[in-house]
């Protein structure tokens, strides 16, 4: 009888147990060594609420946004973006920018969306510019998607750096 009770308890306990998959953590990788000597300094960055957290966001084919349960950012996303934009601190005069991101996430169909607005300030001149960028992901999986997101940030940086100084308005 005692044996029977022990077996029932054991079965009950095993019935409650579940297998929890491992959670993967990511940070935006620096894609390649930067050659330009231009230096950016992000004075302000604003993320939309839907990505301003630790869950990686994926837009599904039906248009709904999915916050991943098992794929998380290892750092604050805005810190990661600032890190990529500013790069390593080098000597020289830096250009101050303010960044307001409207959307920045991957799509289940294999693309990355990045849009928003930046403001570049140099001396007493300033330039506002909107951006709306997309990038295709060549391989499936979250790792490749994160790499593509980092690449898109690098493209944004290039755009900001290469923006014509004459566009700046006083």
């Amino acid at each position, binding site marked *: 009888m005692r044996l029977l009770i022990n077996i029932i308890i054991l079965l009950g306990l095993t019935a409650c147990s*579940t297998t929890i998959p491992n959670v993967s953590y990511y940070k935006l990788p620096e894609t390649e060594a930067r050659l330009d000597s231009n230096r950016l300094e992000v004075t302000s960055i604003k993320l939309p609420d839907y990505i301003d957290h630790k869950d990686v966001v994926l837009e599904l084919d039906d248009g709904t946004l999915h916050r*991943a*349960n098992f794929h998380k950012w290892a750092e604050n996303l805005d810190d990661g973006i600032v890190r990529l934009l500013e790069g390593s601190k080098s000597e020289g005069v830096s250009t101050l920018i303010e960044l307001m991101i409207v959307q920045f996430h991957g799509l289940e169909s*294999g693309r990355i969306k990045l849009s928003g607005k930046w403001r570049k300030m140099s001396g007493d001149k300033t330039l506002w510019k909107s951006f709306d960028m997309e990038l295709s992901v060549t391989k499936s999986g979250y790792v490749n998607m994160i790499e593509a997101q980092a690449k898109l940030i690098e493209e944004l940086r290039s755009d900001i750096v290469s923006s014509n100084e004459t566009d700046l308005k006083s």
Partner: protein
Amino acid sequence: MSNPQAKIRKSRRISSIWILPMIIFIVGGYVIYHSIQNQGPKITIEFSNAEGLVAGKSKIKARSVDVGLVEDIRLSADHKTVLVSARLDKEIEPLLTEDAVLWVVKPRIGASGITGMGTLLSGAYIELSPGLEAPGRRTFKGLDGVPNTPLETPGVRLVIQSKNAKSLSVGDPATYRGFCVGRIEAADFSPEQGVFEYEIFVEAPYHKLITTSSRFWNASGISVQADANGLSINTASMETMLSGGVAFDLPEQSQPGDTIENGQVFELYPNAKSVQDDPFEHYISYILLFDTSVRGLKKGAPVEYRGIKIGSVTDISFEYLPKGSSINIDKIPVPVQIRIDPARLEWRDSAEACINLAGELSDRVDIGMRASLETGSLLTGNLYISLDFYEGTEPAEIGTLGEHMTFPTISTGLAHIAQKVVDVLDTVQELPLKETFESTGGALDKASETLESINQVAIKLEELIAKDGTQKLPESIQKTLMDLQAVLSGFSKDSEFQHNLENAVKQIESTMLSLEELTDTIKSKPNSLIFPGKRKDDPKPKASANSK
């Protein structure tokens, strides 16, 4: 056969069956007698309405002790008032004096605060305040409001009269030098005298402060006045400033008078200044005739003798000039009426003192006393009247103008100034100038010595500045400023403190968002805390179709 007949015999004894009713009757009678014998007095109170009172429920209280019960409430015969019948305890009978007061206690919000809050739960009741007169009264007229002070409270009730009802109302405080010593208990208008009458109760022992010499004034608000003495601002206590009230005190230079009794009547002065201006009952009145402009002279302006106030200006008007008089139209003098208070000259405040002072002043006029207009304040340009002695004046005397006495005046205008200038020049002419110049040479020598001393001080000052300690002083100030800058930079936008603060705020935001998600989850699935269920695997992002 004949049946036997029962013999019926009338019994003379009372049947034993009546014993029990008789006992009941006797006991009942005794109970009724005892009840009537011990029944307290029944009183009738007339109120304007019976709001809050309930027959058989509302109580009569004296000093918050239950002493009776309302038995009946009905309208009066003319339907204009309410008659409340109440039965009181027998031992309360001595409290039903002729001057006893009854009123309904219920929540009230008034100038004196919120009262009767306790009746919100217990219901309204009638409060009985016994008086001091003989007992025996059975019908009363109830008060509409709460009497501020129980009648037996020691103190004094007096009446102040005013020609206007300026900002005074029942419940306002009566203050003595800013300290509240009583309240206005009633306000009424006397059509016969055309004055407002306020009944004031001043508590013991402060009622001893009031004598026949006391003066009452309206202490409401702030009084700003510009007069010959410049600008003055008068305020009473904060309470009276906000809620109004009366203040009383003895006027300056006044001695306490006789003690007062209940009902003493006082005049209400408009403000404290008016009390000090004209506090005395007896005075002598004169008309002054000025040939110059009296612009800047106002009613209430002081009349001074060598800087000491002895009276005040009471009126400025041409009406004192006799009508149809033969005064040259080019030289119409301006009549100014003044009063001089004997009490301000340490005389008694009496009619006899006035007569004596008038005689004294008449003698002084003979030896050169005159009235003149003087500037009291260059700031406001106000004038006052000065009585003083002037040498070389033309002979004059106290005259009459109609029914008024006139006091001779003297001009202190340009002519007076010219005389002064001549006097000054005469004085200069008499100065020993030669001796003065000689002594001036000596003074210059002294000045040279002084300059030499100053030079030496300057040298010593230079030495002091050259010292290391003095030189290092700016350096230490600079160091202190740098330290201060370092401290402030710790709180700047780029500082670590600021960074940590931003991170902390971010963490709090993140936690709040997680809590919000948790709340949403619990709402949709209340048992999710115990049975979390299996979370689905995340959908996997695919490679773009274009890249294949």
